[in-house]
């Protein structure tokens, strides 16, 4: 009686490589988004105009949260979110104090320029951030290289060029095992 597994092995001797199972990462922005929606719904019970303004104003962030791909998605979304929120916060004061002002505010182009412009600032920050970081890092690397060169120079001064591992050992190899003449 031949076992099934043995048969399988006989038929298909080449084992398939085992890949690690990809785990879906629970995004922080998802949790934040859910909390944000719950908060918004809760707010809608007391200040529906304010909730409406926030929902419309924060739209660029929501779009980014839903469409963003690749690495650092949450960081990018959060930074756009902070900038966008700053724009929304500027407009929210009037509506909070007087709900009737909602219509006036909503039709005003300035409102959209401020709220979505602030989101644009967030996008701009995301675009410029890596560039600036690269420049700064390049500068820091140069400093570190200078320090390394100095450190190496000190080592060479103390240990000679041999420490660099480039110089051959010039010590003559003498065969001392040769038996000397005996009387």
């Amino acid at each position: 009686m031949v076992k099934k597994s043995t048969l399988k092995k006989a038929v298909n001797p080449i084992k398939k490589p085992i890949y690690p199972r990809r785990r879906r990462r629970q995004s922080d922005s998802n949790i934040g988004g859910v909390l944000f929606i719950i908060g918004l719904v809760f707010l809608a019970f007391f200040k529906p105009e304010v909730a409406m303004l926030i929902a419309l104003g924060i739209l660029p962030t929501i779009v980014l949260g839903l469409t963003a791909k690749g690495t650092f998605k949450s960081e990018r979304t959060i930074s756009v979110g902070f900038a966008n929120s700053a724009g929304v916060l500027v407009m929210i004061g009037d509506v909070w104090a007087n709900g009737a002002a909602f219509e006036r505010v909503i039709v005003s182009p300035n409102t959209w320029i401020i709220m979505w412009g602030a989101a644009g600032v967030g996008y701009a920050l995301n675009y410029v951030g890596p560039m600036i970081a690269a420049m700064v890092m390049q500068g820091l690397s140069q400093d570190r290289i200078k320090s390394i060169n100095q450190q190496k120079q000190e080592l060479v001064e103390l240990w000679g060029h041999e420490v660099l591992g480039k110089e051959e050992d010039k010590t003559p190899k003498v065969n001392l095992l040769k038996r000397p003449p005996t009387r």
Partner: protein
Amino acid sequence: MSGETTPIPSGQSAFGDRYEVITSLPLPEFDSHGGDAFKAVDKKNKSADIFAMVHSPTVPIRNEFYNAFKSNPIVNMINPIDRGLMNIAINGNKQRLVTIFTRPTGGALMKEDGTLHPRLNAARLREGAVLAALKAFAALHKAGQTHRMVKPTRLYFASEKSDDIVIGECYSAPAGYKNPFALEPLELALADDAVRGPGDFPADYYQLGATLQCLHFGEKLWQGRNRTNLIMARINQGSYWALSGGRDIPGAIGTLIRGLMADELDERWGAEEVLDWFEGLSKNKRTGMASWSMNKPTNFMGVAYVDRRLLAHAFGKNPKDAAAYIKSLDFPSWVQTAFRDEIYSERLEYSLDVRPSEGYGGPRADDPKMVARVCAFLHPSGPLYYKGLALTLGGIPALFADCFARDDRETMTMLLELVDTKFITALVEITGDRNPKLQSQFSALASILEHGSSTQLGRGLERVLYELNPILPCASLRFRNVWIGSMLQMMRALDRLSSAGGGKNILLDRHVAAFCASHGTDMEREFNNLAAAQSNPARFNSLTAEFFGMLQTRLKVEALPHLTEKLVIGLTPAVRNLKNKKRREHVQAALEKLKKGGDISKLSTEINMSKVQALDAREFSQACNLVAKLDKEKARLSKKITPADAEARKKGFMGALMAAMVFFAMVSLMTFVKG
């Protein structure tokens, strides 16, 4: 090479100052194989009759004899008075060991040319010579020593007018060393002349008998005699008849000589019989050969042998032919036919392990040992035969010294082959109680001979030489002009050698290393370290410096500036090999400071080159690792960083996040403050 020869000390020693050796007045009648005799004067006692023996550095002296009898001189014998190192002008200036002896001035009873002393007559021979020897033997044997250098040319009248006779010294050469074959008792005579060993007390009585016989006939009875024929004659007719050439000695003296020259140990006269003889109670023992005769003659190499001692000797001296012959025999049948009295047990058969030739019957590796076993069976109390050598185990130290003097490494290698427990066990089984000392003698030798097969520094054949002959001076060519008998003398000699520009890599001289290892105590670890560093000159030199530093401290030797300087120069490659520049400069400065001081021990206590080297190597390795790490980091940092790099993106986005957060915080603050 002149720089490599140790200069002799500039001044005489205290011993040399006291005694004056007149090398222009040699005294050949006192010469021995171990040295040359010269007239000497004791400056403190100018009337004393003394002579000086200048010892040969290649022949070991009997130190135990000197220790036993220097303070307790033996009557009727030449006794050592003093000894020491002295600068002597013989073939150029040399430092040699010189022993001062009491000098009998009456002349030798027989000169080297064989002529007898005019004052010698039968009465003086009968009473003076025998009595003198008897007294000397009594004292020697009481101290457990044998003389073994009794010769007609080495008996002297004590003074020009006295009838007292004294026998010659026996201290300047090993017992029986290169004695004429005829003057050796049969049980020792069959051994080669440099390896007869100390023998037993009866051997002295045999020598006395042979000496008296020579003096009686007024001839050197051994001269012009063929060794092989004399062996045949001595075994077949007995030593007395063989030496005398068939001439009998009538009277009491003849009886005495016959008794003394008996070949069988239990028939040979000793002190008791000689005393009886003096009192006229002589028992004329007859010697018999029956016990050594075979029941059937054996033809070997065209000669029919009846005596098993002769057959053993013939086998032993022709081992290849003997092996082929033994293998061609039906050995058990041959033993049972030729030795009917012998019980050929299974155990004996197993011990002899004679295997007949098989197939083409070529030589086998075991053949020499097989021949040795058969020889031991044939002559159990005789010498050990191996590869053409005939030796007694007690004589191996002298043979080793002789081999070194002749640079005969082949023989020494043969001797090392004897270190085979199975072989020796078989020999002990075969000889049984007829050679009871074999096992104990071998046990004493085995641990020493084991050094011989090693190529390690401080071991090898040289070590065997010095272990077997602790009194022998260091035989290094560097010391050919000086006498190095102790570590202290060696240290001082090395200082002089260094002053002459020699002594480089001194511990690589196998003689020097072996001498140090043999004369020093607990030096195995040092020599193991030195041996391990043989292929690394820098490390070897630093270990050498430490070694001599340790010796200087241990022996409490005075400052040795030249040796220190040489060792410091020897350390130059080690210092040069130090990688750390600061350490190198520091060590160099410290060495320069110690160079002239002469205190070698400070080289290890203040500098300790081995530790410095180890520390330097360790730190250099760490520095190399650090450099590699820095190089790796530099390579990583040298790459151009673009905004698309993960790290830049991460940091950029984090920066953007922070900026947005700040922006939000500011707007919030402004909004609420305004509100």
